[in-house]
């Protein structure tokens, strides 16, 4: 047993897990409020990464990240306003297919603009190098990303559960019609929530660029894991998405050390077991 190896794997798992939680929170809010599994969520993550890459060249690292969040939030708002909204009266399956079509379009757009070849990217100078944690030496940048996303995910949770705006979102998830009848502009809430969820995905993509690099298929690769997180955590449950995100990230990372060929499949096996044992998800109500 190599303690340092396992400590590194667990830390890697927590970094990935926080990313999954970030994706899961956005996906879960969109799913809870608009009742659609957003198949474009993965490609929004990828688009965030690529926008950050181009933005960082012009405005530096922080500027690139901010540009990515803003751009992807706008794209998300546009998807809701121009597409999803028009389908509010038809069967939800059609909305799913719309987001699937958008996913294809955006993936191909990424290849057209940035090319199909993978790109690597160095973390900013301030966060370069490693920190000695006693058990293992770990890259500074990854630690920073882990702490930042943890704080952000916590802030999202507090926003939804403790603020007035969060109460509106929860009311919308509970009962859209009644919320609208009480004078809430539910359409606007839909658009803003979609934009926020997309922005979180874009942020996740941007922050992972120095860790994972850029690949045109990165959106398609992460989407299934984001779905697993939401299903495992419970549809519409934010604490569930956070817990499931961490669980999936750590399991996947540890399996890579123990038995690499089964690392990805184990995540889906975990989901299946979860669904059989707790159909409503780990912390889901429904």
């Amino acid at each position: 047993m190599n303690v340092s190896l396992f400590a590194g794997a667990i830390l890697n798992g927590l970094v990935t897990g926080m990313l999954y939680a970030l994706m899961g929170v956005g996906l879960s809010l969109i799913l809870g409020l608009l009742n659609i599994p957003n198949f474009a969520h993965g490609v929004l993550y990828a688009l965030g990464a690529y926008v950050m890459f181009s933005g960082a060249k012009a405005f530096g690292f922080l500027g690139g990240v901010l540009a990515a969040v803003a751009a992807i939030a706008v794209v998300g708002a546009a998807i809701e306003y121009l597409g999803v909204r028009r389908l509010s009266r038809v069967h939800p399956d059609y909305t799913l297919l719309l987001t699937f079509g958008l996913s294809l379009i955006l993936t191909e757009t990424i290849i057209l603009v940035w090319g199909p070849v993978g790109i690597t990217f160095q973390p900013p100078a301030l966060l370069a190098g490693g920190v000695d944690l006693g058990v293992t030496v770990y890259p500074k940048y990854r630690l920073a990303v882990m702490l930042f996303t943890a704080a952000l995910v916590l802030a999202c949770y507090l926003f939804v559960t403790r603020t007035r705006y969060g109460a509106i979102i929860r009311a919308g998830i509970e009962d859209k019609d009644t919320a609208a009848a009480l004078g809430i502009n539910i359409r606007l809430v839909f658009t803003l929530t979609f934009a926020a969820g997309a922005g979180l995905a874009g942020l996740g993509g941007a922050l992972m660029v120095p860790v994972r690099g850029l690949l045109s298929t990165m959106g398609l690769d992460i989407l299934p894991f984001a779905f697993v997180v939401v299903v495992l955590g419970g549809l519409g449950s934010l604490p569930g998405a956070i817990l499931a995100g961490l669980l999936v990230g750590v399991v996947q990372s540890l399996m890579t050390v123990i038995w690499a060929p089964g690392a990805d499949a184990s995540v889906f096996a975990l989901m299946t077991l979860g669904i059989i044992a707790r159909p409503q998800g780990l912390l889901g109500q429904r």
Partner: protein
Amino acid sequence: MSRLWSRNEAVLRFVLLLAAIVVLPLLVRPVVASEIWIFAIAAMALNLIFGYTGMLSFGQATFFGLAAYTAGLMMIHWQAPLLAVLAAGTLVGALAAAVLGYVCIQRVGTYFIMLTFGFNQMFFFIAYKWTSVTGGDDGLPGIPRPPLALGPASIRLDSSLRYYVFVAAVFLLAFYAMKRIVDSPLGVIFQSIRENPGRAAAVGYDVKRYKWIAFTIAGGFTGSAGVLYSMMFGIVPLESMSWIISGDIVFMVLIGGIGNLYGPLLGAAAFKWLSEAISVVWERWPLILGVALVLVVLFLRGGLVEAFTRLRDAVGGPRARREPGERVAVGVTAERETGW
């Protein structure tokens, strides 16, 4: 009178289908023509669970790929005969669908879609990583195309045209079987579940059990399509198990029009023909596919069949009549807020 007309129309459609089978290899390369009928079987299968029973599966490639790998391995390692392989692949598809479907149908709506999708990914990653058996990313090459042994006679299928005839024959059998299923009382139960699962349960039908049956039958059909696919190029590519294929099958059904027998066939033909035509010209053809999908979803939810119906109504032809167990222009009837 109207019964007679609708019967004539049904015959006419079938004659048109036969004509299409004959003419298709003259219009496109026989390989593409074969691919069209192979995916038509898979689209027909998804139509049974999505169009007729109301469950959108985003994981049909699981059964397509499992059957394709099964067939490939049987032929490479055991030199198994053609019909045995076809039967085995169909069985594997149905069995896998029975096992996975049992878990999936416990949930409805978004959960169901994500479960089918999740299982698809699980098998994809297993095939990707289990390189000693599946060849991983490189695919499983070296699959022979054994001759068709019918009693003492043995028909070689080595040319792509000969193989096309075999594929078309299997397709027609599958089509006939599917027509019998959707026209049967079982098919009517499926549709009642799509229309209103609560009411179907209230009049005494075990909804979960019938969903499970539909899912299993569809898995078998999809499996047979996978077997035909494995022999076509002599290789099972890893992509045959990917969620992109699952999405393609959903797209074919949608573009053709869900809930009637001919829609998925039109959809498969249009999809495969377009992808062949465009991919030669432009490598980034999924972009056009995505645009088409978005446009269909936003403006033409009934698919090609609805387009035909609208066109016919516009030129003043006879009003579209519904055959038993058939919904024309489902997009219009689906134009209501339904639960999952």
